[in-house]
């Protein structure tokens, strides 16, 4: 069971329909009690960072998500991805969930290379460059076009979290992740066949997670019992 975090920011219908097309059971909720029972979460969102964090804090969801991701997977989409970072300069400086290191900044609108103006938002289909083709999110995928629409992007010095990037006058983190916490700046639910395959990869990852964890804890248990025998 997947939980879609509904904190009042944006349109969940397309995402829920994409999950339906993948025969995925899901619950849409803003109650941590309901979301706690799920196997993995999706944090969507369009709109302003500050409003989103205010709503997450107000509903007690920030604290809930922080606990949740210690055990289970999360995928942030678009603004939902940006919220995973430490802070954003959108509006006034606002603290994020800080699951990933980096900050969210606005596209300057002026090319550092040529000094020419460019369009903001970054809107449309852009190509991806895979930085970590072995990531479970990119399983069996080739670099392709994905649909972006955003005026802010994540700046990070931690290259280990960059799974795929796009080039739009800046290096735009397009798929990010650390452990079982992931984010996509683009909209997989709007990115055609490629986006659907990436979403499916996340859902498969969520399904494998309990087995993977059980294997790890079995290994740890046998290790510690082995130690005791010595």
């Amino acid at each position, binding site marked *: 069971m997947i939980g879609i975090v509904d904190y009042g920011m*944006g*349109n969940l*219908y*397309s995402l829920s*329909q*994409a999950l*339906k*097309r993948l025969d995925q059971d899901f619950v849409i909720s803003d109650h941590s009690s309901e979301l706690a029972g799920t196997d993995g979460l999706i944090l969507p969102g*369009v*709109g*302003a960072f500050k409003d989103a964090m205010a709503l997450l804090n107000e509903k007690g969801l920030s604290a809930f998500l922080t606990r949740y991701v210690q055990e289970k997977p999360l995928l942030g989409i678009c603004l939902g991805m940006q919220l995973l970072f430490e802070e954003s300069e959108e509006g006034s400086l606002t603290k994020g969930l800080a699951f990933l290191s980096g900050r969210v900044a606005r596209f300057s*609108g002026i090319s550092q290379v040529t000094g020419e*103006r460019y*369009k*903001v*938002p*970054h*809107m*449309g*289909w*852009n*190509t991806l460059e895979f930085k970590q083709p072995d990531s479970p999110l990119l399983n069996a995928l080739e670099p392709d*076009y994905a*649909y972006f*629409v*955003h*005026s802010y992007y994540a700046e990070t010095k931690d290259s280990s979290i960059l799974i795929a990037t796009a*080039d*739009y006058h800046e290096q735009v983190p397009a798929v990010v992740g650390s452990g079982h916490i992931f984010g996509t700046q683009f*909209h997989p*639910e*709007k*990115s*055609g*066949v490629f*986006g*659907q395959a990436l979403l499916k990869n996340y859902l498969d990852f969520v399904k494998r997670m309990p087995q993977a964890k059980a294997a790890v804890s079995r290994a740890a248990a046998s290790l510690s019992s082995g130690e005791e025998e010595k």
Partner: protein
Amino acid sequence: MLAKRIIPCLDVKDGRVVKGKQFIQLRDAGDPVELAMYYNGQGADELVFLDISASNEGRNTMVDVVKAVAAKLAIPFTVGGGIHSLENIKALLRAGADKVSLNSSAVENPGLITAGADFFGCQCIVCAIDAKFDPETSSYRVYTHGGQKQTDLDAIEWAKKAVSLGAGEILLTSMDQDGEKSGFELNLTRKISEAVDVPVIASGGAGKASDFFDAFSAGKADAALAASIFHYKETSVAQVKTYLKQKGVAIR
């Protein structure tokens, strides 16, 4: 690299797809969901649904059309026509539309652009501008109500204002070119694209693949929209995209 977008436009009346030539003659043709999936299969980058229903019943049907399309379609789409309030905007976006386009209602009530942008972000508010060259003043005038009502607004100034109010994209239709199939209005398209910092969609006048190339090169458009030539299979989205790729345009 960010690709130039090819956007088929579907005019919808009372839940059925139709297409107007010069905004007046209508020819009935098709089911919105079926056509959306057809264009998606052809490689369309985005779709625009323009609701030209005259009645409230017809407009209410649009929310159902949007839901049905969103359930199937995995690419973005915009809905325009008959959107007069924040409530209308909310209903369409919640039904699964990615963007709404405001035309007459934005001219009459520019605050609606800001209200929509504040609520959902500027990326989902498109300002649609119908413009016609005025030889007397040598400028482009904005028209509303499906091209029937002339306003005092200059198209370039209005585009700039709409963006300052929160519009995240401009959909520019040349009334001089619309239905003529002799190419997009390149002069105005370029002027507006240079005047605003948001993407501009060129519309009106597409007749062949090279017209799209001109819209992107000479017209500096970020996307180009067409209806009849796709709708009546005079050319296909796939053919246009193949042509543009050969010409070295970044195309998905």
